[in-house]
């Protein structure tokens, strides 16, 4: 019964997309490209949620705010430290941005593992709810740190990456700044996958997430592994922060909404599952773009958040293990 409803719903969705694609093909493909770009940024944040959840079964509410703080910090790095502007030579921009990515990723890593060290580590044996509530508290603290340093105004940087088109096929265009996001995200994802799958540290992460006690018996320093995971998640949030700043304005409270969207993406793909987070994030990015960009029976940007949360609720109720996750006793 439930699966019938699910299939019907997916069929309707596909039909809606097909009709839109036939009615306005140019818009459809433009929106598709926007969705993929947006989804890539979400993927980096969603991975942070999924990494931490995988190892601690904790929804780190503060993650979105770490992302926002890193994004704001990157404006300082780009504008004050390196003084990059759109008139800087191409080589300067490339070098400056590369350095910014490294610095901000390190910054995000430090912030995130500090949060873990200050708050979550003391609560290892505490009730699960206590840690969840602490995470909500940390989220507000980090957000207010951003507020104290950067104020309520939105921050932005001059357009460093050209918005000229790479190609233009019959109205469908793809700009350099959109490509830049993919150009950064793809290697980061490959690197992450290598780190988790093939290194010693990644192995201890996987072992700890499976069974912390057994991992400890095997000589894995569980606390260090958890710290490393938070640092990794923070670094991803840092990279996402820089990418976001290159594309959009950022404010101290940007991270909260975006964090929730990214979390939805992680749940959609199956929380704790790295591939799932990326797939979920791309889907959410596409859903958002289609909703805001298509013209035939699309609710429009006023309803994006409602739509994303409705998806979140539907997924949690009907398929809590997500699209790619395995069914666990906890999920259902």
């Amino acid at each position, binding site marked *: 019964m439930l699966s019938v409803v699910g299939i019907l719903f997916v069929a309707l969705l596909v039909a809606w997309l097909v009709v839109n694609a036939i009615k306005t093909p140019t818009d459809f493909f433009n929106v598709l490209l926007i969705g993929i770009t947006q989804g890539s940024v979400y993927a980096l944040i969603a991975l942070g949620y999924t990494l931490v959840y995988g190892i*601690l*079964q*904790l*929804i780190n509410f503060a993650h979105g705010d770490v992302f926002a703080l890193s994004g704001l910090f990157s404006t300082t790095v780009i504008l004050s430290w390196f003084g990059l502007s759109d008139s800087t030579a191409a080589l300067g921009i490339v070098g400056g941005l590369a350095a910014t990515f490294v610095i901000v990723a390190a910054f995000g890593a430090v912030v995130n593992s500090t949060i873990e060290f200050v*708050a979550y580590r*003391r*609560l*290892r*044996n*505490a*009730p*699960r*709810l*206590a*840690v*969840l*509530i*602490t995470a*909500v*508290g*940390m*989220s*507000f*603290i980090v*957000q*207010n*740190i951003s*507020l*104290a340093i950067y104020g309520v105004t939105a921050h932005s940087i001059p357009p460093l990456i050209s918005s000229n088109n790479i190609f233009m096929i019959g109205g469908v265009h793809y700009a350099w700044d959109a490509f830049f996001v993919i150009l950064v995200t793809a290697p980061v994802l490959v690197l992450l996958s290598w780190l988790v799958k093939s290194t010693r540290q990644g192995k201890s992460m996987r072992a700890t997430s499976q069974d*912390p*006690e057994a991992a*400890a018996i095997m000589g894995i320093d*569980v606390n260090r592994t958890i710290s490393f995971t938070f640092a990794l998640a923070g670094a991803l949030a840092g990279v996402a922060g820089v990418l976001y700043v290159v594309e959009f304005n950022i404010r101290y409270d940007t991270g*909260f909404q975006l964090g*929730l969207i990214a*979390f939805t993406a992680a*749940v959609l793909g199956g929380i704790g599952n790295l591939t799932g987070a990326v797939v979920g994030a791309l889907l959410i990015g596409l859903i958002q773009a289609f909703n805001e960009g298509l013209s035939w029976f699309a609710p429009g940007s*006023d*309803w994006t*958040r*409602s739509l994303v*949360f*409705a998806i*979140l*609720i539907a997924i*949690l*109720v009907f398929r*809590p293990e997500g699209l790619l996750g395995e069914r666990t*006793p*906890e*999920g*259902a």
Partner: protein
Amino acid sequence: MGPRARQLRARVGAQKNRVAKSARLDQLAAQWRRIPSGYRGWVPFLILVSLAITYPFYVASLPTNIPVILTLPTVHDTVTILVFVVMAVGLNVVVGYAGLLDLGYVAFYAIGAYTAGWLASGQFQQINFHFGAVGVGSSETGIHISIWLVLLIAGVVTAIGGILIGLPTLRLRGDYLAIVTLGFGEIIPQFVRNADDLHGFDLTHGTFGISPIDAPGFGMTLHNALGLPIRYDDSFPPTPDRLFFWTVLGILLLTIFCSMRLRDSRLGRAWIAIREDETAAGAMGIPLMRTKTWAYAIGAFFGGIAGAYVATFNSGAFPSQFDFNISIFLLCMVILGGMGSIWGVVLAGTILAWLNVEGLANIGSWLNANVFPSSHQIDVPKYEFGIYGVIIVLMMLFRPVGLIPERRRKREIEEGTRGSLDEPLYEMRGADEPGAGERGESGRIPRG
């Protein structure tokens, strides 16, 4: 008489005084003992209630230069404070008794406020329906139902909303449930913000909100018979604020009473059993879904009444009132007071709500005048939620049972029961720690 003798006499005098004082104290204590033990607990309560009831009469004569807090809240602000406390007591049923983390309580607040908006204002101009509303001309369009009825209807509608939200989601484990409620808490405010053009139909009047909303009152007949006010906002200040204050005080006392009686009822015991150990509660024959749904419905009921009351007090329901922050703010009250502890929640709710409406601004200006140098003035209210964040984290780290812990909850935390709230995040005990090896399985029990 030499100086030595005078000294001696003075000492004797002091001694006598002390004896007299202690005799008076003994007398008082004897009187105290004469009160039957069952009623003794009522004395501080009655003193507190009479202080609260007479508050509007003496607040104006209180000093306005108290260190740090400067002033006590005005009657107008006290209404808002008490409404928040009503909601906190309602949330306490969900979070404190039944142990279901609800991060979207603001949704219930919004539903209540908008129900009042729909049933007691000129929002629906197509309809002309009057029932017991006071001070509204019979030719005015819209639905105008007596506020007293609207409060009740809003509670019931919100409770039904709570059941509808709860039915599909209450099967989920603790943190997933938190996320789903958070989702609803985000969707409903966005819905009311956008629902001014649903295929041309204006349901909520969008960002402008629904305004004005009718005021409560008792009408002509009761006014003539009992001298009750005809309509709250007909009279001149400060009377309307006082009327609203006494009414909300009554609602709060009623809420506290219901909440206490519920806690000791069969249903309340079932909630606490679920909080302590869901699996065991289910095994003992408690219908889990039904019991949890009741917790949701009742928590929502109080939220709805509070929402409707705020709407009539402000004479409007506006989407900007229903931020996610409010949910956290209310949760903070429950945590700070102590989950499940009514008096703790009332105390913490009063403090935090006061900080929200007046306290932080007052403390901020005191700090700026007396502590911070004029070159480094800080806008304290701006960091309100950062301060709440700090409170939440500190409480969780150092005093997870709250300000006035409920006895039972305290024992649960000390003994480490394994309810859905208390399932450890990460069971890693050292061999020498208490409880080591008692529960090898890291709490991963399938939950029904």
